[in-house]
């Protein structure tokens, strides 16, 4: 229990360099191939949760012949239990802008947008001030890549990339059919790189420190560090930047209250890991991936209520266009309620498990597909709490 503490990292929130936008200015002098090679070498994967290799995403977009391209920073941080992008945008916005501008150079985009979660409207005044500074600096170094902020309106689904594009275009925020992917058909139907806030900061840090330095952190499949939003039954909730690839057991040792029975890794759309699996669970793309949310639950919590709460959330936040997600979420929530009340036999849970699997297979976008993550991991591991 009293092992060395988890390694704290200070990449993301580290101080700015002493010269304003130094890294950006220097990176602009490098060739696109060099930058892409560095990114590939670093093994950086998207920090939004899905973990797509950033270098490949950029390369695919760069290769598209379209003269019109876009860079979009996904700051629609809606996953329950995640609040790290807010912190990044408050404390180190310049790093985000720099990462976006580097992306713009590499893929040949003319313009960048930050899609800011509607509930983060209060960040706007400060962010706009910083953005003015960036735009001024960009002009001074002859960089033609203006960045604008686009405010969301409070729909969780708009964090899904194609729904985000629709929302930005003034449409109803509904996911599109894929393929085509954003690398060829994104915002306004043009090739678009869309990355999480933290990913852009990571890019910028790789440019500053070099890929080798970055690779020293993390594991083979999960390079670098990650900003975690720690909440729930913990004496020290907050934002922590930690090395990726840590065993969950050590995380719980450090952040738990001594009575942790489960950790929900990755928010409502992530996985629930019960105490007996803490030891064998690695936080990273080889194990349980996360967009940053770590929710700890102690034995005073009813996992039935936790699940019911998540399902209520999904039921309301589904865009409603595809059948498995719109109706499936309602059936799952009402289903566990019926089992709890005794209106349905406990065997009905197996039926619901199969339904959640069908949702994973057939839903149109990540929202409907990932409802099964929390549903099946909670029902499977805490079946008795669902019934009694």
């Amino acid at each position, binding site marked *: 229990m009293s092992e060395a503490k988890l390694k704290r990292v200070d990449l993301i929130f580290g101080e700015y360099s002493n010269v304003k936008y130094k890294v950006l200015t220097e990176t602009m002098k490098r060739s696109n191939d060099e930058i892409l090679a560095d990114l590939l070498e670093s093994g950086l994967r998207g920090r939004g949760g899905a973990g797509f290799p950033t270098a490949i995403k950029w390369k695919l977009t760069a290769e598209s012949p379209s003269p019109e391209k876009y860079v979009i920073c996904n700051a629609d941080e809606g996953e329950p239990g995640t609040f790290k992008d807010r912190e990044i945008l408050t404390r180190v916005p310049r790093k985000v802008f720099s990462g976006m501008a580097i992306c713009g150079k590499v893929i040949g985009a003319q313009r960048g947008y930050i899609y800011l979660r509607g509930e983060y409207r209060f960040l706007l005044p400060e962010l706009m001030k910083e953005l003015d500074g960036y735009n001024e600096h960009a002009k001074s170094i002859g960089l033609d890549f203006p960045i604008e902020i686009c405010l969301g309106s409070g729909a969780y689904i708009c964090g899904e990339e194609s729904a985000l594009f629709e929302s930005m275009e003034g449409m109803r925020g509904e996911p599109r*059919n894929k393929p085509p992917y954003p690398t060829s058909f994104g915002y306004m139907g043009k090739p678009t790189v869309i990355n999480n806030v933290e990913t852009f900061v990571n890019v910028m840090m790789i440019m500053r420190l070099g890929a080798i330095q970055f690779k020293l952190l993390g594991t083979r499949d999960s390079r670098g560090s990650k900003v975690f939003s720690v909440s729930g039954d913990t004496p020290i909730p907050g934002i922590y930047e930690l090395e990726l690839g840590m065993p969950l057991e050590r995380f719980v040792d450090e952040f738990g209250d001594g009575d942790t029975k489960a950790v929900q890794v990755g928010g409502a759309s992530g996985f629930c890991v019960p105490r007996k699996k803490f030891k064998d669970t690695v936080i990273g793309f080889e194990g349980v991936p996360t967009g940053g949310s770590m929710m700890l639950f102690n034995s005073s919590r009813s996992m039935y209520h936790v699940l019911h709460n998540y399902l209520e959330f999904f039921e309301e936040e*589904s865009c*409603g266009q*595809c*059948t*498995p997600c719109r109706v499936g979420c*309602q059936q799952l929530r009402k289903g566990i309620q019926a089992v709890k009340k005794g209106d349905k036999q406990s065997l009905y849970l197996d039926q619901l498990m*199969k339904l959640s699997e069908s949702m994973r297979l057939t839903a*149109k976008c990540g929202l409907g597909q990932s409802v099964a993550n929390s549903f099946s991991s909670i029902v499977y591991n805490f079946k008795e709490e669902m019934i009694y």
Partner: protein
Amino acid sequence: MKNDQTDIKNQINLTIDGIQVSVDEGKTILEAARELNIHVPTLCYHEDLCVAGNCRVCVVEQEKVKSLPASCATPVSEGMVIHTNSMKVRLARKHIVELLLSEHHADCTKCYKNGNCELQSLASQMLTGDHMFLDLVPDQKYTIDMFNTAIIKDDSRCIRCQRCVRTCEELQGVSALGVAYRGNRMKISTFFEHPLFEVVCTNCGQCVNRCPTGALIEKNYIDQVWDAIYDPTKHVVVQTAPAVRIALGEALGMPPGKIVTGKMVAALKRLGFNTVLDTDFTADLTIIEEGHELLSRLKRALVDKDPSVVLPMTTSCSPGWIKFIEHTFPELLGNLSSCKSPQQMFGALVKTYYCQKRKLDAKNVVSVSVMPCTAKKFEANRPEMRSSGYKDVDFVLTTRELGIMIKQAGLDFESLPEEHFDSLMGSSTGAAVIFGTTGGVMEAAIRTVYEVVTGREIPFEGLNITPVRGTEGEVREASLKIEKVKPEWKFLEGVELKCVVANGLAHAKKVMQDVKEGKANYHFIEIMACPGGCLGGGGQPIPTNKDIRTKRKLAIYEEDMGMALRKSHENPDVQLIYKDFLGQPLGHKSHELLHTHYTPRKRY
């Protein structure tokens, strides 16, 4: 051979259910499967509309891919291996249909679409006997909008496939229907959830044609018509539109494109209508009135240089189009011909001219029309449509409703003998028949106008003015040089008559936008609200698609070619009515009975 190569698309090889197939690049898995005659079930997919990929019923298994892609929305790629009927696929599809049923008010025996519902047939295919999931219907607050005269919208039967939304937006450019709310509350609704009669809905019924369930249906007047038929004090007159005779067969189990004019007349007589007449008669009359209106506008513009004359003149026989222009371009109402639609001309004449001739009291006459259209129901209920002193058309039935009545009466439609329309207002010409297809009114008008002005027949082989024969999904422009005119039409010598034909309101919108911006130098515009014209109308048999509509169109032209008379002014009944009743085109009586005015409406 050499030139062909540019047309050939890249071929993509894939395997579906163990069968190798090679299809054009850009096709979807669903289209590839259909080429192999493998039937993948669908619900939200419709040939006429853009792909939505909403219902997920058409999912298939793709090897090396974790999820099950929707076959309607996924393009084929080289080396793909697809299974359309694997265990995984079957369970997922069953789950999806069960989910749809759980939020669907499935009281099938009480539903108007019972027996003609895509969800119902899918459910029976999948043997969804016992309910797998909880019934969600009682927990939802559903609304039924039945305040409209033409269309009923019942949300409790809606499966949110959004075919109607796509139809309204893509085909019609109206967007009266849209998606509201999110998640479990998501529904298809209107602007601020107003009832349909308060919004921009044109009642065109294209959504009704494409709704897979009973969520959008026409308001039917079957019982009212039966009541009138059974009432011994009433004389019931029925008129049938040109596009009904080439589609009614479909509603009664016959293949598309069959001409059933004679059987339809026989059936109507057997149903008990006292007189069976033909809307074609007033279609011919429309040509005379509208043709003279056009000539008079041209004369006033070219000779009198009257600045108050509005050109181009647009047709006014499509009631969906009328409501559309009233909402969308209220400032262009002056461009509309003041002629009523053939249905309303007919109604006005039945209760005046016909009653007079047949010595009937108009108050005992019930006038019924059979139309390929739902907007006609709205039109008949317009307050200005009472120029006979009574409601000119009492009840409007769609082709579908007539099909139901024929079934109710137990008639074996296919074996009925061919009968003829009754006289006085029952004769027609080929020019009237082609009113049923896009470009038809234009063609009929030109056949007559050209002859009126020059004294010669239009110089096209077989009178077939192919340049104005509209094509679906296209705005067609044509021009016609008028030469060697009669002395009284000297001002038209050498004038190039410019016409344009559009079908589908989305196309109409483009044409009228040009007119509004002064970019269009046309003289005459024909607009039909529905894709393909009336033959693709909102009251026609379901299903509809381009292939079916093409067959109906060929049937219309075949019917035209088969007519002894091909030009409206040769219709003997039309000649008679001018002699005995109306006097002359655009005369006093005509203005009273055959012309109308329009109402500017708001967008919201």
